[in-house]
């Protein structure tokens, strides 16, 4: 994850995704000067924000002045390509988004949306963070998380397996297993 590149032209892209939700507080937090500078200091060159249904519009930047290049869009039919080309992913806490990113073995900071009613999403993010599969943050603590993160501390997530459930169901119903 995140090997160093000597070539000046090669990009290290940070991809931010909120899925189909509205998560203005995350987009806002990412758009702040301090977060952008923290990302730049960590060696990232581009910031791409998928803002979903949010109403806050981030500020684009070409990055010619020696800072982070910033771009955004609302939706994409498939964000898989963006995830694949990213060096760091900052994602909302939806389980689909989290596991799609972990499957691609990308380092990810999962940000929990505290404005959501019944926020059970944080359970998954916190559990995976405790197991060192990703970093967990709130919009307000994003800056600290980025400055203090050590990508080397992340452990790859082993994909799960649905076979035990299928076997259980088969046995329960009396089907013989091979």
């Amino acid at each position, binding site marked *: 994850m995140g090997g160093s590149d000597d070539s000046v032209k090669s990009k290290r892209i940070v991809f931010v995704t909120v899925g189909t939700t509205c998560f203005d507080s995350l987009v806002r937090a990412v758009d702040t000067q301090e977060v952008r500078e923290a990302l730049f200091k960590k060696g990232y060159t581009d910031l791409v924000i998928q803002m979903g249904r949010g109403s806050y519009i981030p500020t684009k930047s070409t990055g010619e002045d020696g800072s982070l290049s910033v771009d955004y869009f609302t939706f994409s039919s498939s964000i898989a390509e963006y995830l694949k080309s990213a060096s760091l992913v900052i994602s909302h806490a939806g*389980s689909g988004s989290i596991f799609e990113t972990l499957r691609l073995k990308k380092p990810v900071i999962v940000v929990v949306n505290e404005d959501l009613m019944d926020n059970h999403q944080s359970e998954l993010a916190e559990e995976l963070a405790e197991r060192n599969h990703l970093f967990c943050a709130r919009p307000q603590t994003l800056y600290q998380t980025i400055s203090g993160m050590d990508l080397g501390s992340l452990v790859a997530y082993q994909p799960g397996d649905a*076979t035990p459930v299928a076997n259980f169901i088969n046995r329960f119903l009396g089907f013989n297993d091979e």
Partner: protein
Amino acid sequence: MDNRYSCFFSDMGFLNVAISFIIGISTLIMIRIFYVVYRSSKPLYSRPPGPLSTLIILGSGGHTAEMINLLAVMQMDRFKPRYYIAAATDNMSLQKARVLEDSLPDKAEVELVETSQFMQIYRSREVGQSYVTSVGTTLIALSHALWLMIKIRPQVILCNGPGTCVPLCVIAFVFKVLGIRWSSIFYVESIARVRRLSLSGLLLYKLRMADQLFVQWPQLKSKYPRANYVGRLM
């Protein structure tokens, strides 16, 4: 005078009979319910059964992804005909199911694909909907679910998700009690549930309406001992 007394006594007699009747029926129903719950918790067939008609209830987003993951490792020739139900406002889930069905290798069995029916039901509660109006929409969902269940009468029900599955599972349970159809109900709690069950999961667990309930994190197994911990599906 005698007439008045005899009327009074026959009224009392009728009341007694009525009450005894109600108590009798209620007791029979209670016994039947206990029997259904007890029998449901045990493996169903001692010999391999033939193909079982299966209802697959899809929830939105991450829920559907998990269900597709499960279906991908199940022997589809044991579970047919297959019926998929998703909420009326959820378009993506049925599409994903269709993709899965189209990808099945055994296309030689044309019957397999043709008998998979895709249907939609009204949601009991939309995300963000107030709990008060939820009562009305739940009643509509219940009547629609009843109509669908009468048509399908599945032998196996697979669900893992949000409100969509509760009306269907309740009706399936009632069908079991009334002897209309015995369904084996399997509920897989979402991987996003680490420390607490979802409302659907909790209802099915407490009311013992699911034959088997699966959880994906050990914390839930400690909290809900009757659940099965099977590791993660994703």
